[in-house]
C-alpha cells in the first residue's frame, strides 16, 4: 500500500444484547482513497459507520485515525479530530437557513471557523454543492436533493480528514443521481478521503477505488469493485445460493 493510512479498523465488534451487529471487522483506508462499504440490508454497514463516527461505542477492537486511537471517544471529539458525516436519513436544522446549517458544520468541527472565515467558507461550500445564492433559504422550503446537498456542504465546511457518506445517493431520481455521482466524483478529484455506504451499484463502480463487502456483520470480501462484485460469496449474500 502506497498512501498513508487514514483509517485503520482492527477487529472491531459491536453487539446489541445478543445480536452481533458488527463481528470482528478489520479494514483500512488510505489517504485520498474512496472506499465503498457495501452489503445486503442489515449487514451492519451503518452500524460500522456509527462506530467510526462515535455515534455508537464499540465493544472490542480498535479504530485508528491517521495513527491516533479514536476508539471509544465521544462523537464530538471524533468530529474535532476531523471525521465528518452525513446521515442515512437526511438531518437538517429546521429552524435555520441553509447558510446557518452549513455554519453548524464549521464552527465546532475540525477547523473551528468563526466570523468572516466562516462566512466565506460556508459560501464556497454552498457554491461547490450547487446551492450558490440559496444561503438565505429556510431548509423547510428546500427539495430533497437540495437538503442532501446542504448536508454535504455542512460536512465539507469543516474540511474533514475523513468523510463518511451514509447512503447519500439513496432516494434520488435518475437525473439527480447523475448530479450526485458527479458531485462525489469532484470530491474524489480534490483528493478527499471518503467512505461511502451505498446500494447504488453504478455509483460504486464509478466512484470507489476499493470495496469492503459486509454480510451478517462480518467482512466477506475486499478488493476493486469489479473483483468483489464478481465474487461468489458476495453474489450469494446478495441474491441467495442458487445464483452463485
Amino acid at each position, binding site marked *: 500500500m502506497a498512501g498513508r493510512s487514514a483509517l485503520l479498523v482492527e477487529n472491531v465488534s459491536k453487539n446489541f444484547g445478543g445480536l452481533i451487529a458488527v463481528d470482528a471487522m478489520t479494514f483500512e483506508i488510505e489517504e485520498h482513497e474512496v472506499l465503498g462499504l457495501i452489503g445486503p440490508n442489515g449487514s451492519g454497514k451503518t452500524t460500522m459507520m456509527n462506530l467510526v*463516527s462515535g455515534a455508537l461505542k464499540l465493544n472490542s477492537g480498535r479504530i485508528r485515525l491517521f495513527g491516533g486511537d479514536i476508539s471509544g471517544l*465521544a462523537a464530538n471529539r471524533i468530529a474535532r479530530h476531523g471525521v465528518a458525516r452525513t446521515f442515512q436519513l437526511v438531518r437538517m436544522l429546521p429552524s435555520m437557513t441553509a447558510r446557518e446549517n452549513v455554519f453548524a458544520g464549521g*464552527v465546532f468541527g475540525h477547523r473551528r471557523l468563526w466570523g468572516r472565515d466562516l462566512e466565506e467558507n460556508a459560501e464556497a461550500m454552498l457554491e461547490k454543492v450547487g446551492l450558490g445564492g440559496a444561503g438565505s433559504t429556510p431548509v423547510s422550503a428546500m427539495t430533497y436533493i437540495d437538503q442532501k446537498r446542504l448536508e454535504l456542504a455542512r460536512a465539507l465546511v469543516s474540511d474533514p480528514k475523513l468523510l463518511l457518506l451514509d447512503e447519500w445517493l439513496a432516494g434520488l431520481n435518475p437525473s439527480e443521481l447523475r448530479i450526485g455521482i458527479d458531485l462525489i466524483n469532484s470530491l474524489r478529484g480534490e483528493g478527499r478521503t471518503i467512505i461511502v455506504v451505498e446500494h447504488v451499484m453504478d455509483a460504486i463502480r464509478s466512484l470507489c477505488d476499493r470495496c469492503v463487502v459486509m454480510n451478517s456483520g462480518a467482512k466477506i470480501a475486499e478488493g476493486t469493485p469489479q473483483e468483489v462484485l464478481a465474487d461468489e460469496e458476495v453474489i450469494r449474500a446478495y441474491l441467495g445460493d442458487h445464483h452463485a
Partner: protein
Amino acid sequence: MTGAEVRNFAVAIVLFALAALIPLTGSGYWLSIGVSIATYMVLSTSWALFSGPTHYISLATGAFYGIGMYVVGLGIEILPYPVLLLIAAVLGAALAALVGLATLRLSGVYFVIFTLGLAELIRQLVNWGQTTQGSSSGLYVLTDISEPMIYWQLLGLGAIVYLLGWWINRSRLGFALRIIGNDEVVAVHSGINTASAKIILFVVSGTVATVTGALLAPRLSYIESSIAFSPMLSFLVVIMALLGGAHRLWGPIIGVVPFMLVWDLVTAKFPNQTTLVLGICFLLIVYAIPHGLAGLVEKYRARARGAF
C-alpha cells in the same frame, strides 16, 4: 455593532431608566407590582436563556429561588448582606452544575419531572432540617433594606441578565445551543460537547434564580419552606416566558408585563381559583400562540415587509 444593535441598546437603556423611576412616584401599589414584574422579568429571561434554544423545560426555578431565600434567612444575623448574595450565587451555581451533570443526559419528559421533583426534595430536606433542629417552621428576615432598594437591585440583576444573554447569543456557545435545540445528533457530530454547553447555560439560569430569591428574602420578613419553594413560582416563570416567546432575549419581558398586571387582578378578585386560571392560561398560550407574543410580532413584521 450594527445599527440595529445600537438602536436596541438605546431603547433598552431608556426603558430601564424609565423603569428605575417607578419608586419615585411614591405609589406603594405600583412599586409592589414593579417588584413582581422585575422578579419575573429576571427569572423568565434567565430561564429562557437555557430553555429557549434547547427546548429543555426546567421546573427547577423554585428550588434555586428557595435556596437563595434560605441563605439570606439563615445568615442575615451573622454575615453582611452582600456576602450572603455571593454565597447564594455560589451555592446556586454548584447545585445547578450538579443537577446538570446528573440530568442533562436525560431528555424530554424525564428532565421535566426531575426538575419538578428537585424543588420538592429540597423543600422536604429544609423541613426535616428545621424540625430536627427544633426551631420554628420559618425564619425571620429583619433588615433595613427597603422595597425600592430591592426593586433597584432586581433591575440591576435584570440588566446583567440581558447583557449576558446578548453576549451568549452572539457567541459560539449560543449558536451551539441553537443547534442542540434543532437536532442533538447533528450537534454532537458537528463537534459540540452538548453536555457542557447545556450545563453552562443551566448554571447561568440557576445562579440567577438563586440570587433573585436572595434579593427578595428581605421583602417577606418571614420565610417558610412552602413559600420559598413554591412549585407555583416555577410554573409562572415558564408560562410567562412562553407567553412572551422563549426564542428571543426580549421575548419573556413582553409576556411578564401584561401577565403580571392581569395576574394581580386575578389573585385579588378570585383568590381561590388562581390555579384554575393558571391552567387555562397555559392551555391558551400553548394552543393559540405557540411562539409567544414575540413570534406574533415577528410574523406581522414579516408580513408588513412582504406587503411593500
